């Protein structure tokens, strides 16, 4: 399984490097490096996601991995260990934010 993943990764990265070789080099032209703004002169934004959605997505990902670990492992030791580490991390991050 890991072998297949590595093979695929090599080929995809190789394709990316091929694109890097054959594409023309980047030239510095005024206005070219500005983000797309539909013709208006707007500043670059540094907006953050709404935190609720990020939290929701994060929980979804965490429990996805948990389900996967339940599937592949024989007992409940490793999934519970993983959950404990994640919950500990959440408590640490949450306490530092508060």
């Amino acid at each position, binding site marked *: 399984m890991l*072998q297949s993943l590595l093979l*695929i990764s090599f080929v995809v990265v190789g394709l*990316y490097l091929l694109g890097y070789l054959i594409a023309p080099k980047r030239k510095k032209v005024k206005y070219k490096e500005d983000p797309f703004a539909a013709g208006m002169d707007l500043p670059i934004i540094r907006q953050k*996601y709404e935190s609720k959605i990020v939290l929701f*997505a994060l929980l*979804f990902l965490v429990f996805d991995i948990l*389900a*996967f670990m339940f599937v*592949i492992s024989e007992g409940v030791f490793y999934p519970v260990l993983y959950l404990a580490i994640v919950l500990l991390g959440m408590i640490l991050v949450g306490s530092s934010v508060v």
Partner: protein
Amino acid sequence: MWFETLIFPGMVFCVVLAFFYEWVLRKTIARIQTRFGPLYTGPAGILQPIADFIKLLFKEDIIHKGTDKILFTLLPIISLIIPFFTLLFIPVIYESVLSFEGDLFLVFSFFAIQCLILGLAGYSSRDRFSIVGGMRTILLLIAFDISLFLACVGPALQAKTLSINMISKNWFLFTQPLGFGIFILCSLAKIEILPFDIPEAKSEIVAGWLTEFSGKKLAFFRLSQDLELLSMGALGTALFLGGPGSLGVIGFLIKTTSLVFLFSFLTALFARFRIDQAVKGSWKFLIPLALLQILLVRVFV
């Protein structure tokens, strides 16, 4: 092992089939709307998606000011690796290349990661259109991921296994038509085509999370979306239409192509939903219906 991973039924086969299905999708939609669609490259424009891909590889790659450069470079690569790896778990010739008891879960975790990648791609661009597109992607795809997963629990429950190989031995379309309908609707949202192309709505937010990507990065994202189309067709075949069956690759091709035709008919027929309509529809209607389907399977089968 390397032959199966890289050539057949691995990467080369998947790329050719993904480009072919993109052509089928574009051509069918165009014919229904009395347009011509792709026409000039190859017979009936069949080589147009490949030409697009190669053209994009040759284009200048612009990284604009204020971008998160590491994420911006890495995300197209990861988003192409994941669908290739996912497709190895779905049976194409009789059996899939890789399999273990519980690979259905793995495929779904890959789908979830893919949706987070699209959201992050919007975020890393630091462009207002991209950020709105990324937010919409996460909202929409998480809502539809859950109903998609619940729709796929039915076949697994009836086959009493979580391995896609074992599930694909029987037809579940006739015992679970409701689940199949939900699967088709959620697939449309997953591929981000018309009734649910809210994240890249061209008339509202330019190209959504794709706005700032150019050159090879755009090519990679386009290819990964085509592969997503192929993997949804292949997963529908494996779970509901009895997999490749006794015909092998030919059976797989017939069933997957008919599913892609179904997707393109639905795309041509409907107009775009608003984001709140789509998300509400998924949480209020699709998820209860999917739960009802599971209950029906549990009671009657």
